């Protein structure tokens, strides 16, 4: 029976390694930041420890029984025939029930406290669509003019944020593990999720409800900033575009406005007012694009503008060369234009 003992040891090691490995895991649920994720993690710890204790007891008893009560060689006698023991039965019905009952209290109170709208929270609207996120910051304390942004959510640290989530097509799920558990994003309903970041930094997130071809490519990030940095950023986002200065950039802008791009994208301050794709007014201020899967750089932009669906299966942005008929020169110019949109 040695292999079984070895197996138990191996499983224990796995558990330890799990904790160790989590350091390099930016999406880990075991490194909560901020009060909401911490609360959830606290409950996880309680139930996890409880489960481990029960696991050790039950599996221990099984392993014990296996060794202790195995039939020895040559022993053909029959064991004592026991049919049951009512007192024992009632005990092992009641004890787990009581144990679980003690868990209900913190569970239920936490469910309610997480659902409440925090006082003084910043309101941000999130719209999910295949396969990117649109954020609308309405006018409120700290934001002087409403604006729209995509995939990268900027928030001020230390202030609770209340996200109002809605979907334009199928069901998605909004998840930033370090800040809060997930909330499904359901078309025709508005769900809410509270998040709060304690200190500045970038927190990775992702869509976690299967939403079709590029479900794996629907990521996001939350960028938490000090209140003053955030105010600066928000003021910048609320402005119209920065006009291109270079000749190539100006050519790119002309191309953009002459192309189908305008039908799908908005660039505030130009005639482009489409609503199918992300607002590009300040696209160059983002670290990533296309659902957070590509770094914002020239190489990736070129690939994207050449053939978006090849880079991101199913993408609703048509292939630049094959479908929209862009030339190499057009793409060069468009990139120069886009890279100037800080």
């Amino acid at each position: 029976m040695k292999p079984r003992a070895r197996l138990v040891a191996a499983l224990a090691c796995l558990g330890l390694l799990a904790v160790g490995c989590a350091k390099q895991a930016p999406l880990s649920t075991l490194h909560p930041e901020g009060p909401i994720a911490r609360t959830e993690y606290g409950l996880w710890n309680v139930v996890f420890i409880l489960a481990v204790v029960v696991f050790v007891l039950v599996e221990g008893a099984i392993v014990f029984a296996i060794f202790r009560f195995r039939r020895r060689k040559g022993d053909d006698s029959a064991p004592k025939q026991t049919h049951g023991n009512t007192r024992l039965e009632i005990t092992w019905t009641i004890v787990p029930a009581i144990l679980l009952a003690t868990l209900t209290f913190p569970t239920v109170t936490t469910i309610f406290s997480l659902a409440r709208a925090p006082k003084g929270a910043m309101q941000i609207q999130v719209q999910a669509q295949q396969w990117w996120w649109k954020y609308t910051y309405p006018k409120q304390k700290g934001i002087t003019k409403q604006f729209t942004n995509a995939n990268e959510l900027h928030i001020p640290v230390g202030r609770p944020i209340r996200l109002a989530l809605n979907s334009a097509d199928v069901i998605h799920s909004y998840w930033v593990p370090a800040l809060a558990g997930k909330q499904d994003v359901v078309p025709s309903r508005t769900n809410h999720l509270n998040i709060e970041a304690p200190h500045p930094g970038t927190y990775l997130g992702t869509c976690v409800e299967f939403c079709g071809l590029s479900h794996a490519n629907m990521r996001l990030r939350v960028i938490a900033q000090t209140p003053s940095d955030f105010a600066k950023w928000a003021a910048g986002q609320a402005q119209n575009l920065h006009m291109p200065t270079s000749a190539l950039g100006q050519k790119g802008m002309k191309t953009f406005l002459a192309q189908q791009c305008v039908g799908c994208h908005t660039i505030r301050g130009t005639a482009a007012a489409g609503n199918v794709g992300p607002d590009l007014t300040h696209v160059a201020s983002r670290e990533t694009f296309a659902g957070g899967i590509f770094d914002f750089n020239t190489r990736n932009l070129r690939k994207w503008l050449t053939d978006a669906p090849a880079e991101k299966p199913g993408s609703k942005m048509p292939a630049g060369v094959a479908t929209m008929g862009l030339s190499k020169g057009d793409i060069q110019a468009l990139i120069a234009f886009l890279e100037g949109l800080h």
Partner: protein
Amino acid sequence: MATITEDITTPAYDGPFRRPTETQKGIVSWLTTVDHKRIGILYGCTSLMFFLIGGSEALLIRLQLAHPNGHVLSAEQYNQIFTMHGITMIFLVVMPLGAAFFNYLIPLMIGARDVAFPRLNAFSYWTFLFGGLFIYSSFFLGGAPQCGWFCYAPLSTMGLPTTIGTLFYALGLQITGVASLVASVNFVTTIINMRAPGMSFFKMPMFVWMSLVVNFLLLFAMPVIAVALFELLFDTAFGTNFFNPAQGGDPVLWQHMFWLFGHPEVYILILPAMGIVSEVLPTFSRKPLFGYTFVAFSGVAIGFMGWGVWAHHMFAVGLGPIANSAFAISTMFIAVPTGVKIFNWLGTMWGGKLRFSTPMLFSIGFITMFTIGGLSGVTHSIVPSDYQQTDTYYIVAHFHYVLFGGAIFGLMSGIYYWYPKVTGKLLNEKLGKSHFWIMLIGFNVTFAPFHILGLQGMARRYYRYPAHEGFDFWNMVSTIGAFIIAFSILIFLINIVWTHLKEQPCGDDPWDARTIEWSIPNPTPHYNYLEIPVVHERDDWWHKKYTEDEQGNLVPALAGASEEATAHDEHAEPHMPRPSYWPLVAAAALPLFGYGVIIQWVFGAVGAVVLLVGIYGWAMEPVE
């Protein structure tokens, strides 16, 4: 026409068509069989075939995920493969494998010669088979389902590159659902009405108890999913708006209906294995099942409570704190009857004389692995913590510990245990034991890492994951584990072949078993019991062999007592229900209806004719 007049003039009216005869051999005899044992074998072999297919799909999934940014499959192929893996393992493997055991064992265990409705039973099998083939034909007819096994609307109805897969899903599961529903009526009736004299409910083997619960669950759960599937079909094929939010439909309605079926389904999948384990442990501990009534009633309790927990699959949907609290509490407490079962199995082993034959190893594997799955299940009920874990690999780990570590290990135990009953031979023990150990190791190497990956934030249903997010190592480990499992299955297949070629017949009671099916010869004669047995005790066969003295010590019963049951050789062979073509014909109509919706209405028209002919022939055919 000529046959009709001919037959009417013969004295015994035999129906309007020529009937297959009992003397027929070979393929025709299998196509027309109404013998519950043969149907059980058909169910078993078919689900093992699907198991190999579903397992190959699992290997493809693991190959794709072995490395970050995997290129083995495209996004669409991956979505099809993981969807088909889920559909296959749940609806075409574990459910029908359970049905294989119901078919073969229930009549034997209750001392009956067949099920209540033998032809309906054949109809169930053929419907299941055609339903499975129908779903798989999607690969050649426009694309397999790619909506995931719970096929959430409106993704399934309008958010995919092609929705033809959704049609195959909705119609295919409808067909296999008919099979399950019909079978459940059959088994419930059989268990309630056809028990041998003396076999009161509390003398039934525990497997029969669990089967009874499962079949009641099926009886009530299948209609729920049938309605949901029709609505999904109408939305997808005909543009109705049940789940279409743009037209006032509600996508969450699908989830409620799906999981209202889906959670009882979990117990439909696991309870047969629990029944098997409850038979195997006593035999190999040489002690009766500890706390029989508690085990039976905890099964019944699970059956009832299983209807009140469905929304634990939906904690992140936004049902609000009141609903989430209610379902959290019900989910926590459904762990209690499950725990009771585990403790009673432990109690059965406690103080026994344990023999570690292969069936026993698999049963112990079941208990140890299922305990892990059960405990991770309890962690899901802590809703705020589940907000983090739901839809990650942590959940994937949980349900594989329940459905593979649980259901599959339990069913394997049953296969090894009753194999002699079916074939007259014991599967080779050496190969069986290596099968067990390799599968146990492979299983844990594959699925234990999923707990870690889930806690590290790896989402489900990603056709690829980026490098440097901490997912690389454990995914590689898991892929290696999957191939270890595949290797163990290879050993299992070799064992079957080996046993057929090399092993000797093992006699009638190779395990020194307890229940009455072991009182008759191996392999089971086609009439089961020459004379319907009279049951006096729980574990009646055991009590024919042994008695207990006042101290609870076991003493062999008087010699000859055990022969009593089989000593009536001079009796004529009992008269058995005759084979029939009609279940096969009627079942063949159902996939034609499906193609009628998907390809061309003409198929549906042909299906209608086939069904009418099938039912007509069936109705006009005398039972005897």
